[in-house]
């Protein structure tokens, strides 16, 4: 009963893969195409739509035939269903397999990210603790020593008392590697 399916298709009452299959069959079935035309016309007549004569439709279709064929198969996103039930099942299995194959890699990546985050967190905490405990003085001591190697600073007690504000203000122009530590440890708002 092809025409009964045409009737249901015209009402949008067939969905998914079945709709795709039935539409494909319909396009090559003259009787089904005629039924489609008739059912559309019946609905329009019942709703009082003015008629466009058959000559108009024939002219229009001739004009469409003369147009260059449109080929844009990827213009719209794919529908949720494949072109056949078999392909749907195969696609699903393939997709599931792909996901399963990627799982070990996914876990590895997740573990790596977690490790990086953990190390970063530890370092940050360490730097914050250093800052709060005044060990920036030691950093300052190292900076002073690098600037003037002749000066040997052996203990925090011997390190000159350099105000943190001074360090923060001058860290940009500090020439040595020590400026990195100054920048990280002392700059805070």
């Amino acid at each position: 009963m092809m025409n009964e399916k045409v009737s249901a298709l015209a009402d949008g009452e067939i969905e998914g893969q079945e709709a795709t299959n039935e539409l494909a069959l319909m396009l090559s079935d003259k009787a089904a195409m005629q039924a489609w035309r008739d059912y559309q016309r019946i609905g329009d007549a019942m709703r009082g739509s003015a008629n466009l004569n058959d000559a108009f439709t024939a002219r229009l279709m001739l004009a469409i035939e003369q147009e260059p064929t449109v080929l844009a198969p990827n213009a719209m996103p794919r529908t949720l269903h494949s072109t056949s039930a078999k392909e749907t099942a195969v696609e699903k299995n393939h997709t599931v397999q792909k996901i399963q194959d990627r799982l070990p890699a996914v876990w590895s990546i997740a573990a790596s990210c977690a490790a990086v985050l953990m190390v970063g967190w530890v370092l940050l905490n360490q730097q914050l603790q250093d800052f709060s405990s005044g060990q920036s003085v030691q950093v300052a001591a190292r900076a002073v020593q690098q600037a003037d190697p002749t000066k040997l600073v052996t203990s925090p007690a011997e390190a000159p008392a350099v105000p943190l504000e001074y360090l923060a203000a001058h860290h940009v122009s500090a020439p040595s590697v020590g400026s990195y530590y100054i920048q990280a440890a002392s700059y805070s708002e």
Partner: protein
Amino acid sequence: MIISQKLDEIPVKLTLVPNVAAVYTHGLVENIEESGKLTQVTASQATGTREIDYELVQLAQRGDKRAFGMLVEKYQRKLSRLLSRMIRDQAEIEDVVQESFIKAYRALPNFRGDSAFYTWLYRIGINTAKNYLVSAGRRPSVSTDIEIEDAENFEDGNELRTMDTPETALMTKQIAQTVNDAVVSLPDELRTAITLREIEGLSYEEIATIMQCPIGTVRSRIFRARETIALKLRPLLDTPEHKRW
């Protein structure tokens, strides 16, 4: 309206569809009949129709012009009716409808499915009509600010003021009369089913609820009603084989 006098046989309430000016109860249907108008309800079946349109568009985008032809068959009269609000002359309406469909076909690669196909088509139609009127140095006879959503909620054809050619006017009248006579002569259950579908725009599920029968029965009844009407209509429309597309 053709079938409205039969609606009072349906002893149930129909649900309110948001944003559509139609609330149906048994009594209100009678009032609508008295006013001579019957507003079509936009029903949940729109989703299924939209999916079918998407399928046809995709087939057309892959090079199958017959699929586009099915969309032409489905929307040519609706588009014509929409544009008749802007253009009076029937011959000019046909020209604009034809140009609109050709533009739509050329623009198919640009259709991404973000909106319903008919919404997209109607926008093309309205723009084509506007351009046509401007190029002819005319202003549209009515406001062109037609809400696309209203395109599916047109009132019946009595309010149209198109200047039909004698041929189309006669054909329209004959078709309407043939369909009307065929529907009236249908068995009650077939007539009710086809009316709820075509006039009220209800889904099969909604019709099944109203008629208290399975959805499969609704589908069968609507199909049988259409086949019965088509049998009477086809001799009127019968065109030679070589003139069919």
